[in-house]
């Protein structure tokens, strides 16, 4: 057993043993329990549980658990409140520790509108957390869709400080960082490639999700391993009371979700599946086209997702979860001549496939009324394959010859992880979290290359080596209310990474503070040091699945960053509606960033020689974000504005001079509005604006001989593409049925058909003058999506 892993396990058990023995002062009592949705039994995360008598309160954790220690009195009163739900009250005469579960009911519509009662767990100015945004699933599903598909990641791109890489891309570029610097967790399991179809859709099926939270800064100590953000996504647990289902049919894909009890109030399941059918719809046209060219075969693309989860309540103190996700993309082309007997015959097969497989076994255990434990065993794998076969039959000098070759390229990353987390709430002024994690990484960035001999099929394989690495993390943090005005979250994370006989330690202090200037105004500040032990090598700007995950090694150091944020937050009351307003500025220096050397690519990367193809450098990102959000009422939504800079400097790139990061976006604006005309009719719209991406274009041309023309590219990323802006609309109408409901949605993507730049290249234009023509160089801009209307039909039962 790895010594580091052994130390983590022992430390966790010692801590749990000590904590289990904790005795509370006789003058206090602890009320603990879960807060769940009354109809579905789903955990509710971040619910405010408050004692109106004392003013003290807490919030439910990721598993819906709360623990509140109060002065002992003859009776106790608690109120649980959560956005979109009616408040629940509980009062009882208690003189000792007691367990009580709240079941919250969805807010009713008696007023004829959709008045939502209740506040979220903490007003924005109360929380110490900075750079954290929680987007309700219902809101995600209400927003306009591309090709009829709801996309979680695209909604996150509407938040300040988060941007997309380009038209239709799902990658998240958070505060000047790159997509690999985001820790994406699905039920606590990391997902390495969250994109389908080169980034046009994400792998997350919104119907299967319970909660989406993005942390851009002020990272609590319980998160580690990435530099720029944490995207923590929780799946639903499955309805413990009744069977339900929902699904949707769109122009690109269809999906269905089924959930229900295996044993009422004890065990439940949820399973959710999605698949595209572009390949099926296009087959007749493709076959006809190939046939007209004397060929046969098929060409297509598809992707699918499958989420599944089992939830089993072992006892009042123990709960077991088993969850899994698998998703796969495949592009294929199989083309051959129709006449197989001809002397001249050709056959080509090409395929490109990539996908994730994640699974997790989780055990929640209430160790003590003040101590909650979560132990999580996970497995995550991301793999892509590229394959090609070619057969050519021909006659040469009277002899019949056959040439064949085959090629296969494969790369993957696999993680096995054991993690234990404790939530300890000894008093309302302290919310302590501590725990540890061990991850065994397995990297295979090299390629399996199959070569076939001409004439004889003689496979020769040259395999890339597998690199194993261990990552260990220990953390402790305390959300401590020092005074009524001052609240601090202080923590420390210790990380270690062992690979190829080299050990990289990392000490990561984390601190966030909130000071209430007035009841409504808060000043916030945070500092976090982070380390990332794995790198993503990317050769392109469109997030191809061929991007390689590689570990830090003896030569290539881990990435490191620090982030300082300061800001202010306030809840403003205007016309009886609450508006959360916040402003944050940040500064984030990064080092040991990794990029491909100029002209290098993943091709031919065998035997772990990728280290010779990359170079290391530094980066800086800084800026300010303004955010105003309305969460209640008929009209909800937000406005976000970001002013930001992101720069890089690599000794081996751009002759060592500082250059703008490709996704250095100076201005970024998002306006989101959702208006409910009634409980059955919703109109939503989004408008986004962003400064154009930086790009490298040629500035001059020269020749070094006949047919030897070259372009002079000048400074890296010194040009700006045109600004990006787009307006989307969605209108949804709900029809109630005896068995459930149907939601018909009509969306328009890019309403005014703006030709947003996808990329630029140097091409030619021709001026025709009678019988002659003049060719002149011009810059051509490729745009992707003009106005695209789409229709989808969703159902729920």
């Amino acid at each position: 057993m790895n010594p580091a892993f052994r130390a983590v396990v022992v430390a966790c058990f010692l801590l749990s043993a000590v904590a289990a023995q904790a005795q509370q002062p006789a003058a206090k009592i602890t009320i603990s329990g879960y807060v769940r949705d009354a109809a579905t039994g789903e955990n509710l995360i971040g619910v405010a549980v408050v004692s109106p008598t004392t003013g003290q309160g807490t919030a439910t954790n990721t598993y819906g658990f709360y623990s509140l220690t109060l002065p002992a009195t003859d009776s106790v009163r608690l109120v649980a409140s959560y956005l979109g739900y009616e408040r629940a009250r509980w009062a009882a005469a208690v003189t000792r520790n007691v367990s009580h579960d709240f079941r919250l009911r969805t807010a009713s519509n008696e007023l004829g509108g959709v008045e939502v009662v209740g506040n979220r767990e903490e007003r924005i100015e109360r929380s110490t957390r900075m750079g954290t945004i929680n987007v309700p699933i219902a809101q995600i599903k209400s927003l306009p869709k591309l090709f009829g598909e709801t996309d979680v990641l695209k909604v996150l791109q509407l938040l300040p400080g988060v941007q997309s890489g380009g038209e239709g891309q799902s990658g998240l570029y958070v505060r000047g960082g790159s997509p690999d610097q985001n820790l994406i967790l699905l039920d606590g399991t990391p997902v390495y490639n969250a994109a389908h179809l080169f980034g046009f859709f994400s792998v997350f099926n919104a119907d299967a999700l319970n909660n989406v939270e993005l942390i851009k800064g002020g990272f609590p100590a319980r998160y580690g391993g990435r530099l720029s953000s944490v995207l923590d996504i929780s799946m639903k647990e499955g309805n413990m009371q009744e069977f339900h289902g929902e699904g949707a049919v769109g122009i690109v894909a269809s999906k269905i979700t089924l959930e229900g009890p295996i044993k009422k109030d004890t065990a439940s399941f949820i399973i959710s599946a999605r698949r595209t059918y572009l390949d099926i719809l296009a087959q007749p046209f493709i076959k006809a086209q190939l046939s007209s060219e004397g060929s046969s075969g098929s060409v297509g693309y598809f992707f699918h997702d499958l989420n599944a989860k089992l939830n089993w309540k072992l006892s009042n103190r123990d709960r077991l979860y088993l969850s899994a996700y698998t998703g796969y993309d495949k592009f294929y082309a199989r083309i051959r001549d129709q006449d197989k007997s001809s002397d001249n015959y050709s056959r080509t097969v090409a395929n490109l496939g990539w996908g994730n497989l994640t699974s997790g076994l989780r055990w929640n255990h209430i160790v003590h009324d003040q101590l909650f434990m979560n132990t999580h065993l996970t497995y995550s794998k991301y793999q892509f394959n590229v394959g090609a076969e070619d057969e050519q039959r021909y006659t040469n000098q009277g002899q019949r010859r056959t040439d064949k070759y085959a090629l296969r390229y494969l790369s993957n990353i696999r993680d096995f992880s054991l993690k234990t987390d404790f939530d300890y709430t000894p008093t309302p002024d302290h919310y302590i979290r501590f725990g540890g994690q061990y991850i065994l990484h397995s990297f295979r960035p090299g390629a399996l290359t199959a070569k076939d001999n001409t004439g004889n099929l003689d496979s020769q394989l040259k395999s890339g080596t597998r690199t194993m690495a261990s990552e260990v993390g220990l953390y402790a943090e305390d959300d401590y209310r020092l005074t009524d005005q001052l609240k601090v979250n202080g923590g420390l994370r210790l990380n270690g990474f062992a690979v190829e006989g080299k050990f990289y330690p990392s000490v990561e202090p984390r601190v966030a503070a909130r000071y209430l200037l007035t009841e409504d105004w808060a000043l916030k500040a945070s500092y976090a040091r982070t380390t990332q032990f794995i790198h993503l090598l990317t050769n392109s700007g469109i997030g191809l699945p061929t991007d390689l995950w590689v570990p830090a090694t003896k030569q290539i150091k881990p990435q490191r960053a620090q982030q300082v944020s300061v800001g202010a937050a306030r809840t403003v009351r205007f016309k009886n509606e609450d508006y959360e307003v916040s402003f944050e500025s940040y500064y984030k220096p990064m080092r040991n960033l990794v990029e491909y050397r100029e002209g290098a690519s993943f091709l031919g990367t065998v035997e772990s020689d990728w280290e010779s193809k990359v170079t290391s450098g530094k980066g800086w990102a800084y800026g300010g974000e303004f955010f105003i959000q309305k969460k209640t009422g008929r009209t909800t939504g937000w406005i976000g504005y970001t002013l930001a800079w992101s720069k890089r400097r690599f000794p081996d790139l751009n002759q060592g001079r500082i250059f703008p990061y490709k996704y250095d976006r100076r201005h970024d604006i998002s306006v989101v509005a959702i208006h409910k005309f009634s409980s059955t009719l919703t109109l939503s719209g989004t408008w986004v604006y962003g400064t154009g991406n930086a790009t490298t274009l040629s500035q001059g041309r020269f020749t070094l001989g006949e047919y030897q023309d070259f372009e002079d590219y000048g400074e890296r990323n010194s040009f700006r593409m045109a600004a990006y802006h787009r307006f989307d609309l969605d209108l949804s109408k709900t029809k109630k049925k005896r068995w459930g409901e149907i939601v018909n949605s009509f969306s328009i993507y890019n309403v005014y058909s703006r030709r947003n730049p996808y990329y630029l290249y140097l091409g030619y234009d021709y001026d025709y003058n009678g019988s002659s023509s003049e060719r002149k160089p011009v810059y051509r801009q490729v745009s992707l999506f003009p106005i695209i209307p789409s229709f989808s039909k969703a159902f729920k039962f």
Partner: protein
Amino acid sequence: MNKLLPFLASATVALSACETIVDVDVPPHTPRLALSYTLSNQTPTAEYQELFEVRDLFVSTSQGVLEPKEPAGRKDATVELLNDAGQVVEQFRSKGRPGFNFSTGRPDSLYGYYVPTRNFVGQPGNTYTLRGSAPGVEAVEATLTLPARATIETGSYIVSSSNNPVGWNNAGRLTCSILDNAATIDYYMVYARVLDRNGQYWGTVQYDYNSPSNGNNSDISLNRYQLSEARSLYNQYPFSDVGGNGQRLIFSNDVYLDGSRTTEPAFIEVTVSSLTPDTYRFYQSLQRYYDTDGNPFAEPAPLFTNVRPGYGLFGGATDVTYRIPL
């Protein structure tokens, strides 16, 4: 495969992609001299110049990227080679070549090429400076030190017993062993040609791209050492002694011979060129440039230059030959 992925991505977006011509605020371009010349330790006879065409002096002027006319060579440049004492040891004169004028659509003389007037031979270990100037542009300059000769230990050619893949007269395996100097970082390129029994040029030695031993797919070459062709910039494959410094570097390629049908080949003449570091960097950057050219999703790879403040290469190559009897 280099072309497959951009094709796949392009095919995906082609469904609804559209193109427009856009105005880009390109900064004004200052024309500069672009110059390419490689000095060697061989006498620049007509035969040598024809064989090592990539080393010939060519001069042009750069232009803005949106100028409609094609970049062209210029015949009015003055180029001199100086030794480390500052003495002019070589001068060049313009010499047109048969070419094609795309503007008029007719054959025309192609200018920009220059020939030496003094047939100067470079000496390994010596330092030389190349200076170029032309009316209307800033003068340019570059300096190098010619490296020492490589040491060829052995060479062999074994005829292939199987059918030739493309029906040429002779195919086989060419092997050459270079004893690398442990005291220096060295860069090499290897050329080969076929001579008849009189030592006259007979034909070419072609790298067999279909051979599985060479790396069947040109996009994924697992063979570190590859034969270069001296007439075209496209086929220059330099390699360094990294990973084999001070050791025996074994160069081994499957090749086929193509030449005269009236005389018999007698020798394969292998030329191992020791390169200056800048020459190596230039040809490496050239490969990267070609690999990314036309791929809109890849970061462009700029061409290396040691000609300041212009473009191009003042290269240095010290040649040593080895004859393998057939």
